[in-house]
């Protein structure tokens, strides 16, 4: 267990769906957690029915939701200010340099990010790649451990069993509160799990994704 955990993910709600059980467990042990959130999810599609947002009001709404979720999880928040869906087109070295500087300020013992190439959304892949590059650029003696989250359907086939599988059942209520803090996202995402054409498979995977938080340890 680390002494300061850095979470590096691109969208408000990635932390809630992806690793909030793990975050809650760290916080229970009084380990500080800082969330470096890449964008404000400006390009989210869910505007509600009836509408609660339009393309121009969505960023501010999601920013407030993000702040609420971080309060719920009791973690520090740093917003990186990139724009949703453009992260992969940024200069990766520049993004990594900025991250490295921010990481050196908190000197984390653990970084949690997405597994590049196995994270489905282009922003996920790009954020994960930049985070890993940032850690790689650090002095070897100061490098934190990196846990990478893979969410592709074929991850086990290609990457093998995850190194870390955490059953977060005990933190499930807190996790659901963090997910629900992202009001604009929670409903749409949960419905997508329910309505998917690959219904049975996805549903069981959806539940498993929430009950178990899996990570691959990155080797440099």
């Amino acid at each position, binding site marked *: 267990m680390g002494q300061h955990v850095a979470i590096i993910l691109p969208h408000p709600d990635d932390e809630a769906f992806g690793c909030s059980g793990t975050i809650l467990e760290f916080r229970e042990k009084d380990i500080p957690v800082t969330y470096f959130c890449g964008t404000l999810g400006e*390009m989210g*599609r*869910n505007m509600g029915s009836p509408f609660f947002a*339009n393309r*121009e009001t969505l960023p501010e709404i999601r920013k407030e939701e993000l702040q609420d979720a971080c309060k719920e999880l009791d973690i520090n928040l740093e917003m990186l200010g990139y724009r949703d869906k453009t992260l992969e087109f940024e200069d990766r070295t520049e993004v990594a340099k900025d991250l490295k500087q921010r990481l050196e300020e908190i000197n984390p013992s653990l970084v949690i990010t997405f597994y590049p190439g196995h994270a*489905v959304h282009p922003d996920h892949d790009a954020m994960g790649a930049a985070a890993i590059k940032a850690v790689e650029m650090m002095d070897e003696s100061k490098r934190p451990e990196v846990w990478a989250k893979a969410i592709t359907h074929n991850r086990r086939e290609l990457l093998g069993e995850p190194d870390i599988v955490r059953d977060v059942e005990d933190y499930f209520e807190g996790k659901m509160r963090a997910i629900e803090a992202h009001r604009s996202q929670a409903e749409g995402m949960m419905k997508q799990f329910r309505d998917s054409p690959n219904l049975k498979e996805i549903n069981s995977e959806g539940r498993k994704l929430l009950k178990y938080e899996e990570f691959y340890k990155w080797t440099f």
Partner: protein
Amino acid sequence: METIQIDHVQKALEDLAHKDVYIHLETTNGAYARHFDSNAYNVGAFIRNAQVKYTQAKIIGHESYRVGLKTQLGWIYAEGLTDWELDDQGRLLMAGHDNEGRLMVALEISETPFK
């Protein structure tokens, strides 16, 4: 946003004609389309703050609308628009949403750059 009323939108479009305006145009089926349905394809296009001047604008359709802008050097159009709003900054926002309120297409016109 509210359901498009064609006369109101036509007037708003004409009010912004012959002016230097900034355009936001996007269409998307979401970054997870293929993840949730292996038969689907992720497609999308996005331009923000393209500066243009259009000389002619029309909205055409029934329930779901098309908007075409004839610019000095070419064209801009969007299809599938269902809702609109003139926001508190005087920007003309138009978007097409599916039955669950998910944005599929957006065309927005502003006299000042979008943030």
